[in-house]
């Protein structure tokens, strides 16, 4: 009798861990699909980004930038087009590092790619393609309806400390596109929510059409209601033109930044 109980217990354990392994493999496969849908590995991609930041309580600032991305070498270059006072200011990313060129001081500053872009909730790292399968592992999954989208919800934990947020929760629609992200601190505090309701397909890959980001660390109570800093990013005029290698260099950035 004892043996029978032991066998039953063992098979439940084995069965359970096998189910978890399958679940984990399915989540990993889904993350790879998510990444591949938005990665332009065979060409450069460039587009115009309009970033509108609204502070809690009112004031709005708008930045327009040209973005150039080469996913296969993990590089991007950002050139500010508006406001006019910042026109030509630029950012160059190489790996996890970012060079900022200050045309006034005629100098480059090396900094972390995790920082905020033009003091908005949009981060420099948000110009990157997604790399969830490389940077995170799924620790839980479930199904949830998000408006008109049926989504798989994945709770992710970072595999490395290069990422901006150690924990992320993703809502992935059945077509493999990330529709919503919640970014958390290590202690589990919600830091930022990003919604990507619509995408645009360019060639065989996808770019967000618009994104809305809410920063949960920047809020004010206005009329008894909590208002958060809200950043709306609109991406337009995508181009798959191949760009010269020299585009992703400090020298090029300096040349155009004045």
């Amino acid at each position, binding site marked *: 009798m004892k043996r029978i109980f032991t066998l039953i217990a063992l098979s439940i354990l084995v069965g359970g861990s096998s189910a978890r392994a399958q679940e984990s493999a399915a989540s990993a496969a889904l993350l790879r699909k998510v990444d591949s849908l938005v990665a332009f590995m065979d060409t450069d991609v460039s587009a115009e980004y309009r970033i509108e930041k609204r502070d809690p309580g009112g004031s709005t600032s708008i930045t327009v930038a040209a973005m150039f991305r080469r996913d296969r070498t993990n590089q991007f270059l950002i050139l500010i087009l508006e406001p006019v006072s910042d026109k030509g200011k630029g950012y160059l990313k190489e790996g996890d590092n970012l060079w900022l060129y200050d045309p006034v001081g005629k100098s480059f500053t090396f900094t972390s790619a995790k920082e905020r872009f033009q003091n908005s909730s949009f981060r420099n790292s948000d110009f990157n393609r997604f790399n969830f399968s490389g940077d995170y592992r799924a620790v839980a999954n479930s199904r949830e309806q998000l408006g008109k989208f049926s989504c798989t919800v994945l709770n992710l934990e970072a595999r490395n400390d290069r990422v901006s947020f150690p924990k992320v929760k993703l809502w992935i629609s059945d077509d493999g596109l990330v529709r*919503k992200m919640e970014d958390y601190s290590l202690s589990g505090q919600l830091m930022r929510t990003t919604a990507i309701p619509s995408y645009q*397909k360019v060639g065989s890959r996808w770019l967000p*059409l618009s994104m809305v980001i*809410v920063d949960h660390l920047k809020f004010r109570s206005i009329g008894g209601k909590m208002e958060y800093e809200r950043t709306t990013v609109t991406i337009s005029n995508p181009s*798959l033109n191949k760009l010269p290698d020299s585009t992703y*260099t400090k*020298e090029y950035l300096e040349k155009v930044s*004045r």
Partner: protein
Amino acid sequence: MSKSRYAAALAAITFSAAIGAFGQEEAAQGVLDELFDQPVSDTVVSDTGIDHTDIYGPDERLVFGGYFRALGGAIAGYRDWPSLDDLSDNFDLGAGVVAETVVSIDARPSSIASIHGSFGTKFDPASEFNWGKFNILELYGDYILADAMFFRVGQFESVWGQGRIFNPGNLMDDSDDSFTIRAAFPAFLKGVTTYAFGSGDVQSTEDLSYAAKMDLLVLDTYLSGGLLYRYADGYAGLWSIKKVILGADLFSDVVVRYSAADELSCEGIAGFFKEWDRLRLYGEYYVAATESGLSDQKLGLALGVKDIFKTKIDFAMKWEQSLDDGSGIWIGGITWSPLKYITANIGLPVVYGDVGTYYVDTGYVDTEDEDLEVGLDGYRVGLIVTLLMKISF
């Protein structure tokens, strides 16, 4: 209060804090979900083929611009510590005004070639009651050869070193008053830039300076090495390192000079820089040494706060201290732009130390106030008020 009351109060505070945090977190959950009820459908768009590198439109191929700047200021202060017996003793007043016009031209005939020039003239009633001649501030051309070689030729400024308070690493600080040829080859010598420049009266190649600098990123750490040679001065080498840790820049520059007279000296800085949304904080330690030992040590700390108390006033404070002779300087100031084109500054410097010490001798020199010729140089304690009008065209 009894132990049990303490415990009850603590529990209440903890509970209410937890409820507050939970409430805020709860309110944050589900935020933006309304955007998914009727979103714009995903679309397939055609590749626009737009050349986004062409950030300057056809009407910006040849652009003239510039600015007019008028600066007025007044200072009141003591050239030595005030005495309670006679408050007028060592008291001094000054005022000045200066105007400047800078005209610039940008010609961008193609994506591989461009020319930039800026020319300035000053009106300083203290020295001469008319506008001076236009001087070349910058004039240079950029050219990209075969998508692999970048050249910049002309008169322009190059900056080395990382210091914001002390910058011994800027070995190129006299490169902007004459011509420079700069070449970079990112395609096959990534991170290497070479320079040849003249400074002052250049009669032969021996009067030229030759320099090269290499920048590297290794394990998320910035490393840089530079070498400068001038026949009359000998060699100067710069080694830099920088690492971003917890959002703060930690950096160091070391400069070693080997003069034409076979003398060895070195100086360096170690510092940090951290920036928040409205706050900047940075500090540096400077040290210099010769073959006979340490020759100088200084500390510097600066703080800048934007929009203090949610006003449009910015506050800044800087403190520098000589560890060798005990002298130092503290300056606090505010900046306010009440109207478009108009900026008001108020500064309050205090210089301490014995007569003959570094900061008492050097005083405080600000580049903008320097133009006024009523700067804070020579004051122990003072108040300077400046009004700047700057109109770009």
